[in-house]
Structure formats: C-alpha cells, structure tokens
C-alpha cells in the first residue's frame, strides 16, 4: 500500500513540477513619447508582461546611466504594465532583459529617434494637434503627437519636454502616477497650452503651478500656438545652475581637505623614515616601514565614502513652488563601493566628465517597495560619482521681495529672525539685518558690498542688473534623498516676481 501511494505521489510530481517551472512569459517593450528622445535626457519605456502562471522575475534595463534592475512579481494569466524612466544612448539600442527564476532570459532591444532639440508634446485628442504636426518645425523644438495615456509617468521623463499642448479632457484621463508627474512639471514653471480652456479651468490649473501659472495659457486656433510657445519661451525664468557651477560651490572645501590629508600622510611617512634612518644603527629592518605605511593608507582610504548634496532652489516672491536642482556627490574621499537609497520619484541622472578616475558602472535597483530605489556605484579616491537631481519642492518663502519705485523692498513673514540673508541688486550685495515679523527693509547705498562668496558670484552671473534677488541658506533638497549621513549645503534664491511690479 505505501508503495502504491508513493508511486501516485511521484506521478503527480512529474505532472505538476514541469508545469510550475515552465511558466510561459511574454514581454513587449514600447518607447514612450512617440519614440523620440533628447540627447542625454531621460524619456520612458512601457514594458508589457504576461505570464501564464504566477512567477517572479527581475527586469534589467541597460541605458546610458548604467543598469536599472526592477523586481517583478507576475500573477498568472494577467497582463502587467510598467512605465520606466530611461536615458537611451544615442548610438546603441536600449537593452531590456527579463531574468526568470528558472534561469531563462528574455531579451529585447529598442531604438529611439535621437535629437538635440526639446520636445513639445501635443495631445492626440486635440484636433489642432494633427495640423500642428504638419506645421513647419522650428529648430529648437520638436512637436510629438502622443495619446493622453503616453504622457510621462514620472518627473524624470519630462526632462526632454519643453511644452505640452493638450486639452482638459486629456488631463482628466491621466492616471495617478501621470497626474503627480504632471503636477511636478507644472510646479517647475514649465509651459502648458490648453485648448479652449475656460477662465475657471485656467485659474484652477494656474493655482497648482509654479511662477503663479504665468506659463499656462489657453489658445483657440492653430496660428496662436507657435506664437504663444515663442512668447512664453522668451519669458521663462532663468535655468538653475549647471552641475559644473554647483560643483564649484563645494569643490574648494573638498579639495582642501583631500590635499591636506594626503600631504600630511606622505610628509609624515617621509619624516618617520628620516627619523628612523637617523636613529637606528641597522637600517635593514626599515624595509618593512614603506609596506606598513602603504597598507595603512590603503586601509584608511578604502571603503564606502561620504555623500554630499549641494542644493540650489529658486522661487519667486509669493510663489509656494521651489524649483530645486541638486548635485549629489557619492564617494571621492575613498576608493570603494558607495550606495544610497532614495525615493523613486526623484529625478536623478549621472553627470559624466566632472571627474576623472575609472569609476565603475552605475547600478540602481528598485527595492521591494517600489517607491524606493537603491543606487550603487564604485568610485575611486578624488573621483566621486556625480549625479544631477531635479525636483519641485513646496514651501512659502519667509520673505517677499517687491520693487517700490525701482528699489527693492523686503518684508519678513516668519516668527524667528534670520540673519544670514543677502540681497543682490545692481551688482552689489547687502546684508539683510534680522527682521521682526512683518517688518520691511530697504537696502541703503552705504551698506553695499561686492559679491564675496562663491554662491553670491554664481547668482550674480544669472541676475539681470536691475532685477533684485535674495539669497538664503537652505536645507538639503530633495528630501527623498536627504538622510542623516548626507552632508548637505544649499541655497534658496527668491527672485523678484515681474508680475508684482506696480
């Protein structure tokens, strides 16, 4: 009897095990944003997965940034769609691999149409959109017609988008992910043209946008679109500083600390050898000292390094949106593997060419909870891995900055006084004294100074002569990256809002 049962069991196992192991999986990938990509900027891809039975797998995407791995769990007989931000390389196709538990690998490639010009996304549902595609293209913008479902699903994928032309119906059909990304896009003072939008709709959308919604307009006819785009483009707020400029804010301190520590190490070693050679009768034993010194140096400067976040936030007076551009420096003070966990929503892209050194490939993976992402990279000493981060923050600045008869006037709104604010105006900087709540202040000629610090000089270069701006110390942003072990420094710039000029 036991033998019969055992035979049945073996038979059942033979029938079911292969079926469990050979789950048929189908993978399809589609390029987002109409297959168009802007050189060096992120776009997105759609991955469609279908499994005949429940299984788990790992999706690997190889793009210009390195490797992105995403753990995927598939329910049987269901279709799963994933939208992933990617930065395709100009000369080679994007590679997507699905690694199954059984060791099977499904590999697909995708080619994007690359260009240097930014994209204007035009909703397919807008009748005028079809006509706009046949409209002569300008040299600085490419029109791309996309259905509403193909509008970006993450802030990263908006990196190459210059403007959006759509209608209210398309916006109302966006998914939650798309709506969040779209809200961040608007918060960053970007251009949106809405077809035949009523005043009430415009007011509502503008209230959600940065720069008081000045870059959101309604249009009625095709002829208006090109002109409106050109007009709004000319009025866009200054771009945040480049990675190179932000690096200049941190590099002197980093350089000084590294030169000092390396100099002390080598000088100490030479002095020790000289002292021992002078003191000791038999110098042969000293042969071990260089080996010990080199070993100590390697031990001291090997392993995970520190992480620095240099942030630069810009806003306008009375605007609750902050456009934040940050430079993240991983490692650089040691040679070894560095890793960092950040929110998946943070737009993060490697900056190449800032440092030399043979750094390893960038690797990032989605953690089990998809909202977090782990980034890891191997760096050498003096060659940190640099990443540019962009995000949109929220927060009403403590100051309002207005022009009163051509001269700037500051009003302070917070309870606790700050004494680190500087006003930049007409080529000079002014120290703002500690102000009480609702107290106002005007700069006096006797208090003016020339720009001294690196951040003042940087702002001075991006400020029109007559236009005033306030510079304040600022906590590291974005908060999705900032952690206790990150050393951060940041500045907030409050610019004068041209719409508030009487």
């Amino acid at each position, binding site marked *: 009897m036991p033998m019969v049962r055992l035979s049945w069991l073996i038979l059942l196992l033979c029938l079911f095990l292969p079926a469990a192991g050979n789950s048929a999986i189908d993978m399809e990938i589609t390029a987002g944003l109409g297959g168009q990509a802007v050189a060096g900027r992120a776009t997105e891809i759609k991955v469609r997965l279908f499994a005949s039975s429940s299984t788990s797998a790992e999706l690997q995407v190889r793009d210009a940034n390195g490797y992105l791995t995403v753990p995927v769990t598939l329910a049987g007989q269901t279709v799963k769609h994933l939208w992933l931000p990617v930065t395709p390389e100009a000369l080679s196709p994007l590679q997507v691999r699905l690694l199954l538990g059984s060791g099977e690998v499904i590999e697909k490639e995708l080619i994007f149409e690359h260009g240097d010009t930014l994209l204007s996304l035009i909703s397919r549902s807008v009748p005028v959109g079809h006509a706009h595609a046949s409209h002569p293209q300008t040299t600085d913008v490419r029109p791309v017609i996309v259905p509403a479902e193909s509008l970006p699903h993450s802030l990263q994928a908006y990196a190459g988008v210059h403007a959006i032309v759509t209608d209210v119906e398309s916006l109302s059909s966006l998914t939650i992910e798309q709506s969040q990304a779209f809200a961040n896009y608007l918060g960053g003072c970007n251009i949106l043209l809405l077809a035949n939008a009523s005043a009430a709709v415009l007011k509502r959308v503008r209230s959600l946008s940065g720069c008081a919604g000045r870059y959101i307009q309604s249009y009625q006819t095709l002829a208006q679109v090109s002109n409106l785009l050109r007009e709004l483009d000319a009025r866009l707020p200054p771009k945040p500083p480049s990675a190179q400029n932000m690096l200049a804010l941190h590099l002197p301190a980093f350089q000084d600390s590294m*030169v000092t520590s390396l100099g002390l*190490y080598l000088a100490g070693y*030479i002095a020790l*050898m000289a002292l021992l050679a002078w003191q000791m009768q038999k*110098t042969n034993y000293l042969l071990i000292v260089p080996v010990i010194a080199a070993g100590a140096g390697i031990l001291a400067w090997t392993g995970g390094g520190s992480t620095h976040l240099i942030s630069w936030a810009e806003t306008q007076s009375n605007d609750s949106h902050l456009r934040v551009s940050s430079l993240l420096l991983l490692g650089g003070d040691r040679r070894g593997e560095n890793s960092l966990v950040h929110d998946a929503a943070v737009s993060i892209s490697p900056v190449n060419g800032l440092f030399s050194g043979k750094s390893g490939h960038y690797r990032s993976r989605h953690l089990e909870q998809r909202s977090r992402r782990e980034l890891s990279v191997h760096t050498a000493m003096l060659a940190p891995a640099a990443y540019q981060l962009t995000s949109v923050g929220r927060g009403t600045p403590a100051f309002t900055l207005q022009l009163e008869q051509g001269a700037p006037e500051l009003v302070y709104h917070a309870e606790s006084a700050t004494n680190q604010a500087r006003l930049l105006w007409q080529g000079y900087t002014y120290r703002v004294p500690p102000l009480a709540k609702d107290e106002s202040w005007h700069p006096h000629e006797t208090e003016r100074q020339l720009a001294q610090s690196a951040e003042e000089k940087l702002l001075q270069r991006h400020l029109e002569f007559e236009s005033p701006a306030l510079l304040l110390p600022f906590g590291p942003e974005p908060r999705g990256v900032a952690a206790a072990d990150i050393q951060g420094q940041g500045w907030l710039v409050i610019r004068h809002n041209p719409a508030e000029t009487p």
Partner: protein
Amino acid sequence: MTQPRQALRISIIYSIPLLLWFCAQLQFIDWNGLSLSRFFNQTLSALVLLQVFSLTLLFTGQTQERMRDDLFAIGFVMLFPLPFLAIIWLSGSASYSALFIAVVIVGSAGGIAFLLQFCGRLIAPRSHLIQIGVSTTHILLAVVIWNFRDLWQGLLEK
C-alpha cells in the same frame, strides 16, 4: 656609509621635492576633466625615473659593498615610494597593468644593476678599469630609460 643607508638617504632626498610638487599640483590643477588622471600618470612616470636615477647614483663607483647590502639597497629604492604608489592606485587613475609595468621597469633596472655589480666583483674586484666600465654601464642604463621614456610612459597611460 653603507649601501642601504645611502639608498634610504637618496630616496628621502628625492621624495621631499616630489612631495612638494605633488601637493602643489593637487592644489592648483583643474580637478575637472582628465587633468587628475594625467597628473597621477605623471607622478607614476616621475617615480619610475627617480627610482632608476637613484639606482644609477647608488651603484656608480661602488665596488666594495657586500652582495647582501646591494640587495637591501635595491629593496629600499624599490619599496620607498610605496605610499605614493598606494595613492595612485586609490585614485583609480592608473590601471593594474600600468602599476605592474612601472614595477617591472624599476625591478629590471635594479636587477641589471645588481648583476653588473656582481659580475664586476667576480671578474676583478679591485680593477679600476672594471669599476669604470660598470659605472659607465649604469649611467648608460639610466640614459636609455630616459631616452625611451615616451615609449614606456605610453604603456603606463594605457
């Protein structure tokens, strides 16, 4: 003064200006682009040349030392700049093959220097003619390495 002590002295003497140059360069060069990588490759090349010249200085005109002392002296010349090499490795600017080539060049120069001394001592320990011949060969060796520096520096940069 014994050969090992002499080797140590020469190494200390050349390493002080090297350290000053190293720190000054690190402070004032542009830390962007490829300048750091180029700087560390230059440091590696300078170390190779300084070690070869140290060997030449050490063995020119020396015939009275014991073989054991000669070996220790070569050991000092080769090992003294190890902390500099450690920094170059940590910077990731030089590949393992470049560091290996640098060690091979200095090691070969040290080996040839030792063999010349050994042969000179074996043929005629007190002959002035042999002493002059050995010293001239040491100098020639240094000249050859200096003359073909473009060749091996190219290998170090790979």
